[in-house]
């Protein structure tokens, strides 16, 4: 379910959208909204500080809840495999120093798993009239706006675990390597519909490289 980000509480910020075109008129795929918002989170998590980057206007779509489970399962698997491997090798060879790298990897996996549920809620994207806005991160906030005409290709990938949970990763590629917009954990229908929409819109607004 999409949530129109209302005025951020306590935010006396000047309206940033003076130059932003009104999203309602020509939003590329108002019809796709139900597909994009099935089984997703319902609000974008933000940092608490007053000085955070504001969400602004418009409808934020989010990623699927299943993404958290996929991440947790793969991180648990990594955690178990690393510790098991370290235990086996230690038992066979008697080298105890192996626990140091194994411990570090296991700790990182556990930490990542711990923050995953919150992190997943911070992903969001908006389909505006002329561009796609992407945001992610709570501690390290990142927002990127990509004009539709700049997209070179749209890439969908899904591994076996992703398929089991019916999610996919959608990546937007522009000529700039630093754009780095990648939406993990969209539902497959959302990913496909988004891809088709983006390709169609990009085609009509193509600009020079």
């Amino acid at each position: 379910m999409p949530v129109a980000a209302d005025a951020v509480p306590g935010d006396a910020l000047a309206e940033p959208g003076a130059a932003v075109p009104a999203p309602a008129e020509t939003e590329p795929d108002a019809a796709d909204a139900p597909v994009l918002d099935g089984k997703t989170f319902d609000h974008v998590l933000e940092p608490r500080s007053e000085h955070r980057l504001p969400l602004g206007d418009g409808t934020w779509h989010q990623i699927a809840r299943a993404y958290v489970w996929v991440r947790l399962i793969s991180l648990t698997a990594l955690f178990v495999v690393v510790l098991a491997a370290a235990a086996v090798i230690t038992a066979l060879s008697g080298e105890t120093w192996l626990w140091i790298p194994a411990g570090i990897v296991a700790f990182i996996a556990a930490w990542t798993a711990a923050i995953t549920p919150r992190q997943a809620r911070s992903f969001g994207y908006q389909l505006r009239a002329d561009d796609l806005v992407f945001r992610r991160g709570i501690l390290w906030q990142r927002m990127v706006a990509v004009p539709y005409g700049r997209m070179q290709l749209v890439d969908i990938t899904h591994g076996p675990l992703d398929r089991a949970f019916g999610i996919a990763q959608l990546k937007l590629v522009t000529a700039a390597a630093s754009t780095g917009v990648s939406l993990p954990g969209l539902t497959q229908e959302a990913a496909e519909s988004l891809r088709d929409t983006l390709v169609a819109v990009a085609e009509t607004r193509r600009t020079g490289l």
Partner: protein
Amino acid sequence: MTDPAVPPPEGQPPGQPTPPVPPAVPPGQPTPPVGLAQPPGAAAPRPDTRSPLSDGEWHRMHPLTPLFRGGLALVIVAGLVISNLRERIIDFFLRAAVPEGPEFEGDTGDPVDFVLRHGLVPLALLALLVVVIVLVGLFYLAWRFHSFRITGDDVEVRQGVLFRSHRRSPLDRVQGVNLTRPMLARLCGMAKLEVVGAGTDANVKLEYLSTANAEAVRADILRLASGRRLAEQQARGGVHATKTQAAASIVTDALTGLVLGAEEPVAEAASVVHIPVVRLILSRIFSGRLITLLVLVAAAIVGAIVGTPWILFTIVPIFLGFGAVFVRSLTKSLRYAIAPTPDGVRITYGLFTTVTETLPPGRIHAIEVRQPLLWRPAGWWSITVNRMTGKRADQNGNDLFAEVLPVGDRRDVERVLRLLMPGMPEAEWPLVFEHGILGPQPDDPYTNTPRRARILHLLSWRRTGFELTPAALFFRRGVIWRTLGIFPLARLQSVGMHQGPLSRALGVASVHAHTIPGRVSGELGGVDRDAAVRLFADAEAAAVAAGTSDRSHRWGAEVVPDLARSYPNPRGRTESREVAPGAGGAGMDAAGPAGVDAAGAAGADAAGGVPGMVAAPAREKPGSVAAPAREEPGSVAAPAREEPGSVAAPAREEPGAAASRTEREEES
């Protein structure tokens, strides 16, 4: 100047070779026969003349090409091998001829004496002849199979005998044309032409052509890429010649080249910047590397005093390394020239290997003016750009000529910037120099780092700032190493905004202008949070507007090119907006972009001629987007195609539909 033309097959009218040649030769006009030789006087191509090599037919390279593409090295290596191992070789091959002959080692010293004494001269000569014939045969084959074709839409190269390769690059994607003349080839009056594409390893190389031909072909490629129509097909100033005359003329040209030395390009515009050699040398010495060198030497001396004296010996390789870099950068920058041409900025550089690079309008993605610390007393600056080189990313790193101005004073910088940003309104120029490069000054238009965040930029917080105009985004950075980044909005790929915990505590954020990879970084930290949010929104909107109205990929199609090059045209924007909502309908698709094209080109001539010209050839090969013959990564993805109008309706529906279809098949 005498590349033989390949004749069209008999019976086919020379006028209609392939559909996509807009300015077709009128039937009945003779095509140049094999071995067409032009007298030197007639060879100078007028800027609007089509060279006979770019008439849409297949042509071969200069006959000496195989020699320069590794053939010479082959001959030299073979010569070295023979001279070093001649005893072995003669023993090996001629032993059978004189089985009763004495043991070679016991013979008198030289193997040539051995050959003479045993009457083997004819045999040896025969062997030599066979080797030469085989070599020439191989070279001939390689030459025979290496051909290129320039049509109205593409430039294509076919080569290889066993492993054939066929590379085609769409002309509207041309990012630049480089004319490279390596030392040896230059002595023979030959040059190689590189059509720079967008993407990694996407360049199409025409190597080698005679310098005059290369010049003409380059002019043609640029003119075709510009979308300008040839006013009328000029009568070809060729003189019909026989094959022997052609061969003789090739040899003569080569000899003339050898004797007279390097031949200047035919049409060389005057450079707007002249760098005195002394300044160049001094600037290379007092570059940032000098500081590194001094630090390293000091470290070595300190290390020698404190620790072992042997450390002193590392100074020698340090000096050698730095010396090599110094010499390379110096020889590259010598003979530097930059000049405006109708088809973009032409930059020439290189002492030994001379490269002439033509950057069409709107191919520059970011510009940075910078000043290393040691240049400050002299008031020198250098200019670096981000542009597509068509090379791999790792080659990009040491791309010395991302530096379009190696060193120059304020006037030089201004002249070069005016060439690079032709569309910038006069009122905005103070932003570049007074406020940008030299700033901050009183009533500074730039938005700077707020005082509360000065901890992030301890020295430069007064200078670190940005300014947004309708045409470009300016990032001013650094107080010790002063830089000014200029990002034309029409080329901006996306805009980013980041904020970490420290920035959040200080109420600031960093703004990123995403451009193609290159030396110019698009990051600006320590921007006030509210200003960053505003800039993020405004820059994005301006980038969309600029991108919509930008038509520089077909720069020649514009009636008033200077206005539309990098400056968003409000009228163009509104009109394209009207078209955009009709995106979904297939019927609107074909009409829409063509309408934009027509709207962009105001004159009756352009409106009538250009869209038709662009669209017509493409309609005849709608499958070209997905055709396997297309090799360049830049053109693989369907959206990479620039004018939607030229990709006819069936092709438009393919990419999305086909992609989803295959994906579903994979799933099931």
